[in-house]
């Protein structure tokens, strides 16, 4: 199981309180994790990546194991610590005013 930490507003949309866990069939990548998230929590569709382009939204970033993975290929394997469940994949909203 992959552990995922969502920003507070997306936790609200998904009606979850803490971390979520998703099961991945096949390689664990950013794409497969978001696919699994959207399948389990359909209210998140279009909020992490654009509905049409499937691109990550500009003000969201992916972190894990103290590394910024946002510019990695969406099909690159996630770190072993994330795959094993030792570390979560963090989906983080950019810090911005307002």
């Amino acid at each position, binding site marked *: 199981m992959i552990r995922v930490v969502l*920003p*507070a*507003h*997306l936790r609200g*949309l998904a*009606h979850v309180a803490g971390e979520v866990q998703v099961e991945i069939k096949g390689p664990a990548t950013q794409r497969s994790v978001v696919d699994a998230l*959207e*399948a*389990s*929590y*359909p*209210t998140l*569709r*279009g*909020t*992490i990546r*654009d*509905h*049409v382009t499937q691109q990550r*939204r500009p*003000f*969201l970033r992916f972190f894990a194991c103290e590394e910024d993975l946002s510019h990695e290929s969406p099909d690159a394997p996630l770190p072993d610590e994330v795959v094993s469940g030792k570390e979560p994949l963090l989906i983080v*909203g*950019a810090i*911005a005013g*307002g």
Partner: protein
Amino acid sequence: MSGVRVLVGTRKGAFILTSDGKRERWEVNGPHFAGWELYHLKGSPADPNRLYASQCSGWFGQIIQRSDDGGKTWTQPGTPPGEQAAPGGPPKAESNKFVYDTSSETGKPLTTHQFYDGKQHPWEFKRVWHLEPSLSDPDTVYAGVEDAALFRSKDGGKSWQELSGLRGHGTGPKWQPGAGGMCLHTIVLDPSNPKRIFVAISAAGAFRSDDAGKTWQPINRGLHSQYIPDPNAEVGHCVHRIAMHKSRPGVLFMQKHWDVMRSDNAGDLWQEISGNLPTDFGFVVDVHAHEPETIYVVPIKSDGEHFPPEGKLRVYRSRSGGNEWEALTKGLPQRDCYVNVLRDAMAVDSLDNCGIYFGTTGGQVYCSPDAGDNWTPIVRDLPAVLSVEVQTLP
């Protein structure tokens, strides 16, 4: 006793204000969707418990919310609320999917418009500015979006299809964004003719369809905008808002960037009715529920200074359909007031003594239960108000 429900969209959530017909004591419910921008909420005229809301964020994009119980509970249409997807597979969850139509079946609508640099720029969906439920069917609702286009849902907001004849009618390449973006912000449905729809776009102008949205024509004759070199420009006008009285759907009132206008022929020709207003810049315009020649605007100092002239918040009322205006000030701040009133932030109820409502960027929502003679703030300290709608309840 009948009552009212005021739907308020703000920069940081939605609020629902309710009162009985006296409109003296109010219950404030919210924030709903705290932290999100709520550009607009509106109830279905065919089912007052059916509400639609446009929720958006610079981080997470567009969300459509729907309530079937007057705002007590909300769901994203087409998704099971708070539940994981069923084993049979997840629902489509397309309530926030707005895809511009580029199909060959609809004539390959154009996919670029003029941009700030004078070049052509692809249409890019950003947000829903305005939701207009059908007058007769609770499941049908129109959405005006940025970049400017009109979408319609016939399944209660679960899915959306573009009415692409608007974007593709011919002048589209000349449309360009105003400072607030290139948005379709006004949708007016003709109660006497289900095939007639009016929309307004900043900064393109006003448009009318007489075939339920299939084809469109610009209706901007008589509009003059000082920043457009061509005095007879067909498009390019920065229309801020259009209002209509249901008993006279051929008469339209418009607050343009500058100038308050009216048309007596469904937009074929406009004439200026700014008259004795202290300034004819502004955003809102609305019509009394029972007096089709009584109209309201809130003059704003200028396009460079978006606040009331002299620091005095004044609603102006004309009982003659324009030109002759009176300032309504009782209960409104008459010194040191520097708020704005945005284009979707005025509404009227249809109680016997017509109530007028407006919200400010300072977070106040004002109500006049007597057609503008006296005003009181329902709330004073909300986030900046983006939209105000009111439902008159039985």
